[in-house]
């Protein structure tokens, strides 16, 4: 079937289409430039938003870790204020052990987010402080509030939280520091004898 549209007839005759005749790129330049800047701005904003979101998630994970440690210490305080034969102490003991067991997976979550945390020693010491000695012994008597056991558990918990908090901050600072820097305008000229006579720090 023959196409008899007017446009086709123009092309066949070798004449430019009427629209192409009036196309002026210069007229579109401001619009193209504006679209470019909008696109770039969107990329920058999106990148910063994503970075903020990751930072916020990592802080949330660190908060969750701290809350878990605080819960454990609070439960352990209740536990040791009760006698070992008290029925409530049995359920508290199970909760304490279960929550302590959740600490390592929480560290794994932080590690998955790029936080370099080495808390295995601190978790071990915390578990020993809370569940060592006469933990779950039926013959254990209730401890007085002045017992040094409470201070010991609190201190071990704080140590653990500090390690995690510091690791989070350290990683975030390292990430900021490792951002690609602008190239210097002029390459620094190496000093000829600047390194002579200087030994590496490990050999000094």
């Amino acid at each position, binding site marked *: 079937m023959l196409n008899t549209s007017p446009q086709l007839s123009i092309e066949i005759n070798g004449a430019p289409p009427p629209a192409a005749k009036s196309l002026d790129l210069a007229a579109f330049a401001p619009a193209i430039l504006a679209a470019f800047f909008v696109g770039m701005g969107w990329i920058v904003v999106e990148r910063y938003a994503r970075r903020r979101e990751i930072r916020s998630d990592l802080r949330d994970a660190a908060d969750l870790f701290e809350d878990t440690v605080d819960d454990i210490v609070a439960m352990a305080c209740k536990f040791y204020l009760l006698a070992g034969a008290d029925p409530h102490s049995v359920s508290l003991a*199970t909760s304490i052990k279960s929550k302590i067991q959740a*600490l390592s997976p929480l560290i794994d979550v932080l590690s998955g987010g790029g936080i370099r945390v080495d808390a295995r020693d601190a978790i*071990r010491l915390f578990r020993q402080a809370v569940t060592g000695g006469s933990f779950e012994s039926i013959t254990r008597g209730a401890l007085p509030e002045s017992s040094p056991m409470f201070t010991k558990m609190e201190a071990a918990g704080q140590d653990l939280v500090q390690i995690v908090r510091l690791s989070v901050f350290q990683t975030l600072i390292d990430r900021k520091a490792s951002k690609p820097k602008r190239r210097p305008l002029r390459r620094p000229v190496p000093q000829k004898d600047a390194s002579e006579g200087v030994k590496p720090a490990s050999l000094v």
Partner: protein
Amino acid sequence: MSRTLEPTVIDVAADFTRFPGGRYKSDGIFSGERFREECLVPALDRGAKVVIKLDGTMGYGSSFLEEAFGGVVRSGRFTPQELQDRLVLETSDPSLYDEIVEYLTSAIH
């Protein structure tokens, strides 16, 4: 010709309990003392390596671990070196591994 013995596998959650707790038998039916006497020592007596799977429980108390593993060292039936060579600990919690190794090696230092 000597034949290598198959390792004995102890899955604590499946073969003992999901709720290990207490140091002595008087503290509960799933105590460290009972685990040592009924699971760990008989497995070590077989002479092969002993693989202990620690995952799957509701958590361990240090009192349980100390009595179970430190108790084997204190019994004097196995040297700490022998225990280190023959025990294989499987756990996803590195702090748990460290703690058990500490109880096993404490007799050396």
